[in-house]
């Protein structure tokens, strides 16, 4: 068994629109995580972090303090936070450092992301003819899934309704007003079958974690949370990803399935042991599909599970207790660490109005993004 890694501090900023720069938000999250751990920046022996479009993490030392700490930039799309976390874990397990920072931050302009065909190895016609639109992929993946497994639009609406309800219980969330399932369904079709209120929006925010070796954690106050595993995977042949001119026939593979299975195997527990989880919900359909891809149910069971309240805060498998991406928005570099922040609060019993009852012991996080990357963690107290 490899060395235990403990999360001793967690911090985040409010997510949404902000006058602050992405870097300023990052400094705020780092200072919150340091304060939560009860340490000074000078105690940190290594740092890993990044953003997708808000600058280089290592430049944060200008504000945090020029201590000479090794600070590695991570740029890994939607898995930026997860990859920073894996790097931090490896730094502790290798003996490189005993107190390590992981930070993710971002700030995006309004509206859908604006990719260029040439950056994706595609001909210019995919842009000029209108196929370089991320929402199309999400619509088409859940469209097929609904056809294969009997999921209804009502279930997609219930996922969004829950997200806004949980966002209302989360002080740092962006979307905090309740929205009913009927309003979600009537909010205007964006990419069939997904409506406007089923999608998250690009936004701004930052999250940071302080990770420690067991020896270092013993010298700190406060209840640490054990990071049982962290796994990152890229897609295998046969997956369905955004901006694909073609996909292979036959059964689809899933990078989320691969990453979650690796995380559970490393942790030595299974999905049935999880008391609270955070699943990538770029839109409602993603949360539905990721429940199955991460092993929490069989394909198609979501229709019954969601309607019966299983994924609510008071249910047997609470999903996205802070409102997820739908209520927090998507600052790409920050989302993965926001998820871990939320699980840390839940396992410490500090989640306030959104606290999962029954003293949850085991949590799980999952991010997924383009071009087929997923990062998962298993945590316990």
């Amino acid at each position, binding site marked *: 068994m490899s060395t235990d890694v403990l999360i001793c501090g967690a911090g985040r900023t409010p997510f949404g629109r902000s006058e602050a720069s992405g870097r300023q938000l990052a400094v705020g999250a780092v200072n919150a995580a340091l304060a939560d751990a009860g340490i000074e920046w000078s105690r940190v022996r290594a740092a890993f972090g990044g953003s997708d479009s808000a600058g280089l993490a290592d430049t944060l030392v200008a504000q945090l303090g020029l201590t000479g700490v090794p600070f590695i930039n991570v740029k890994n799309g939607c898995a930026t936070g997860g990859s920073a976390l894996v790097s931090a874990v490896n730094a502790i397990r290798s003996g490189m450092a005993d107190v390590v920072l992981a930070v993710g931050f971002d700030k995006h302009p309004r509206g859908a992301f604006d990719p260029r065909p040439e950056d994706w190895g595609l001909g210019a016609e995919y*842009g*000029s003819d209108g196929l370089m*639109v991320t929402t199309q992929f999400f619509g088409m*993946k859940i469209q097929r899934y609904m056809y294969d497994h009997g999921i209804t639009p009502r279930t997609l609406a219930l996922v969004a309704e829950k997200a806004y309800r949980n966002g209302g219980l989360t002080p740092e969330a962006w979307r905090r007003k309740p929205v009913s399932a009927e309003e979600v369904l009537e909010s*205007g*079709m*964006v990419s069939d079958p997904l409506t406007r209120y089923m999608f998250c929006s690009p936004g701004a925010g930052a999250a940071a974690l302080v990770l420690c070796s067991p020896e270092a954690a013993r010298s700190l106050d406060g209840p640490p949370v054990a990071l049982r595993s962290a796994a990152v995977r890229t897609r295998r042949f046969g997956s369905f990803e955004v901006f694909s001119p073609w996909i*292979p026939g036959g059964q689809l593979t899933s990078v989320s399935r691969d990453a979650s299975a690796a995380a559970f195997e490393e942790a030595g527990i299974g999905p049935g042991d999880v008391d609270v989880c955070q699943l990538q919900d770029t839109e409602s359909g993603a949360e539905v599909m990721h429940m199955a891809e991460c092993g929490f149910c069989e394909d198609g069971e979501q229709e019954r599970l969601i309607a019966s309240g299983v994924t609510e805060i008071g249910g047997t498998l609470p999903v996205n207790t802070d409102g997820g991406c739908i209520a927090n928005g998507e600052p790409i570099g920050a989302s993965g660490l926001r998820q871990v922040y939320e699980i840390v609060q839940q396992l410490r019993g500090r989640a306030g109005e959104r606290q999962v009852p029954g003293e949850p012991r085991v949590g799980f996080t999952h991010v997924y993004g383009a071009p087929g990357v997923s990062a998962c963690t298993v945590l316990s107290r």
Partner: protein
Amino acid sequence: MDGALIRMATDPRSPTVAVGLQGSCCSGCAVTAYPAEDACPRCGGPAEPAVLQGTGRLWTWTVQRYAPKSPPYQAPPGGFVPFALGYVELVEGVRVAAVLEVDDLDDVRIGMPLTVTAGHGVPRARPTTPGEEGS
């Protein structure tokens, strides 16, 4: 009927009609790709050019309800109108992304027979007429 189709395909006045989809096929693992790739994306071995028939069935779809950001999007002369797009599963097994040329967006269904053609832009698919099936 076959003769008429061949004439259509070679008519120099109609540059966007069916000329076949220029894909590739791996000789080792039989994976078909579109557009053509030099190497097989599954095994990394050499891939040979292959002309795909273009007939198949709709595997999934959506509708682009709002005008994509421009650039890169170039709206047609009459301005943006919502359009359907999807993946057509061809008889060769590959699923190809295409704009769906249908008269009514409400008629789009998974499983509907479609014929995909390649022209100047992205592949385009239109409902297969009974006379084309099996050709």
